[in-house]
């Protein structure tokens, strides 16, 4: 019987010839990253282990340390975290990226070549499913488990049941992977992928850009998936080769791999989607929510703060202004993306439109960094999650959409359809 990509990666990483859903495997880890969140505790990690003489991470070349969610730090707490992770990186000799060389951790991992097809990549961040865009097995683990990986270089997984979304049809203008995944969440529910491995396949995925694939797999977290994954292809393999000098062997699902369910999704005629508070699964076509007022728009995040998203925003914002009743914050997901935006003239467009452009970081998403919402305020953003209070005060609320919809809404001063702006 055949295996899926995920099963094959877990089998290879655990030294098994074959695995089945339900098997528990101890997998080797190819890369794990740590950040300023909890950074102040990283240097304490080894105190408990001194008695047994363990005082080094298992392999510093596989540990990536960076300041990323909140850069530059906006509170004494996050400054302490940044100092902690910096001290840890120096003490342990791990790979280290200082602010000014980073951005949101997930984007840095990709750009700096720490993600290769077939790898196992982990982090204590719930959107770690993102690297499946490269055909890697990537999954979020708890903060304590990150410590476990730092010590052992391994962790355990229960091989998840496999499901597949086969995405077909003609992708309409101004519909991107964000809309497709919001629609899937709306149609199938936010627990459709709970404890499962989700593979995305089909002609729409094959012709999809890497930026869009990253956003799609990132949103795997919102389905509760253990991991989300897309088969490696020329595009993702070429990117990985260009950005990493370590060899890798991609893996692919067998034709007779077993899936618990295969869902077919036809995107023909799909509208841009907007998820209303307080769940990404509350997706509605933009035409149904047009005209809803909000206070703040935000374009950025590890979901939709990449070049493709900022280009969409630029198309809308060129020669236009943000409506005076609202504000639009734009945060490129990394230093690299920021530079590309400068080269393409996008930053000028954003500034001329009266947007606030900030240094790469998570911004309002996660409620940790900057641009937070006050009590009673409403936001619309290109982020991945709109739980209650996610972007600021517990009594704030937010809508999520693609970057074009957010930009169009900022110009209109109320939720708007980007298709009416071009």
């Amino acid at each position, binding site marked *: 019987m055949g295996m899926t990509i995920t099963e094959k990666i877990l089998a290879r990483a655990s030294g098994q010839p074959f695995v089945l859903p339900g098997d528990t495997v101890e997998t080797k880890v190819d890369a794990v990253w740590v950040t300023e969140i909890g950074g102040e505790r990283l240097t304490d990690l080894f105190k408990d*282990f001194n008695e047994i003489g363990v005082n080094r991470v298992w392999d510093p070349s596989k540990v990536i340390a960076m300041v990323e969610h909140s850069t530059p730090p906006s509170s004494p707490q996050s400054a302490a975290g940044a100092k902690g992770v910096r001290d840890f990186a120096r003490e342990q000799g791990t790979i280290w990226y200082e602010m000014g060389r980073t951005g949101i951790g997930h984007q840095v991992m990709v750009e700096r070549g720490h993600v290769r097809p077939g790898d196992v990549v982990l982090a204590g961040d719930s959107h770690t499913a993102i690297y499946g865009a490269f055909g890697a097995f990537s999954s979020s683990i*708890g903060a304590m488990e990150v410590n476990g990986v730092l010590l*052992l270089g391994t962790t355990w997984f229960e091989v998840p049941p496999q499901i597949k979304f086969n995405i077909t049809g003609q992708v309409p203008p101004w519909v991107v992977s964000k809309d497709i995944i919001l629609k899937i969440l709306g149609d199938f529910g936010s627990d459709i992928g709970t*404890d499962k491995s989700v593979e995305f396949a089909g002609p729409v995925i094959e012709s999809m850009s890497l930026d869009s694939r990253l956003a799609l797999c990132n949103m795997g977290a919102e389905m509760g998936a253990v991991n989300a994954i897309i088969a490696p292809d020329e595009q993702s393999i070429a990117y990985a080769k260009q950005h990493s000098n370590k060899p890798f062997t991609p893996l692919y699902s067998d034709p007779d791999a077993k899936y618990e369910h295969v869902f077919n999704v036809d995107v023909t005629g799909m509208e841009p989607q907007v998820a209303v508070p307080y769940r990404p699964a509350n997706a509605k076509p933009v035409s149904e929510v047009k005209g809803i007022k909000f206070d703040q728009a935000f374009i950025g995040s590890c979901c939709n703060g990449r070049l493709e998203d900022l280009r969409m925003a630029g198309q809308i914002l060129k020669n236009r202004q943000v409506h005076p009743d609202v504000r639009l914050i734009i945060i490129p997901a990394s230093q690299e993306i920021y530079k590309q935006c400068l080269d393409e003239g996008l930053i000028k467009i954003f500034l001329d439109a009266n947007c606030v452009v900030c240094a790469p970081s998570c911004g309002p998403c996660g409620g940790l960094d900057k641009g937070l919402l006050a009590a009673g305020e409403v936001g619309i953003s290109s982020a991945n999650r709109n739980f209650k209070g996610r972007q600021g005060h517990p009594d704030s609320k937010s809508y999520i959409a693609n970057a074009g919809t957010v930009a169009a809404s900022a110009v209109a001063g109320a939720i708007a359809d980007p298709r009416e702006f071009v």
Partner: protein
Amino acid sequence: MDAKLILRGRVWKYGDDLDSERMAPTHIWAHTTVKDEDLAKYAWIGIDPDFHKKVRPGDIIVAGKNCGYGSSRGGNHAKTLKATHLGGVVAESCSRLFARSCINVGIPAWSCAGITQFADEGDELEVNLETGEVRNLTKGTSKQAKPPSEISLKILMAGGLMEYIKSELKNKQQSAQ
């Protein structure tokens, strides 16, 4: 049998889709300093602010589907529950990340389809983690669930992930000698 393999406690019952943000709100964790002795006060705070006053050691949370979905919260949702000496969490379906975070601090958390029909708030439950049998002592009924995985049980029995890793590292050192 190790006593810790049997849980016994009163049920506190909650609904579906309890997200991680409500379990450990960002405004508390990112913008204030929570002292260790205050951890229990913040347990379940965005779901039931009085939870820490009501819960007794060994009590069991019964929840609906998709319990704990969302972010990893630095494990703070699990740590605060641990501070209340909660016995365990049984949900129709439990987010893997939340369940693992709980297990890592020594709280059994796992999925048991049908549990919300089986137990009402205030019922006394007895759970055998090894066999997966859940008994409702108040109603005199019993139910079979899939027990937590072997590795989860090992971590729970060790008292949490760090203790488990310590024993694993010790074993490695001993076998290398």
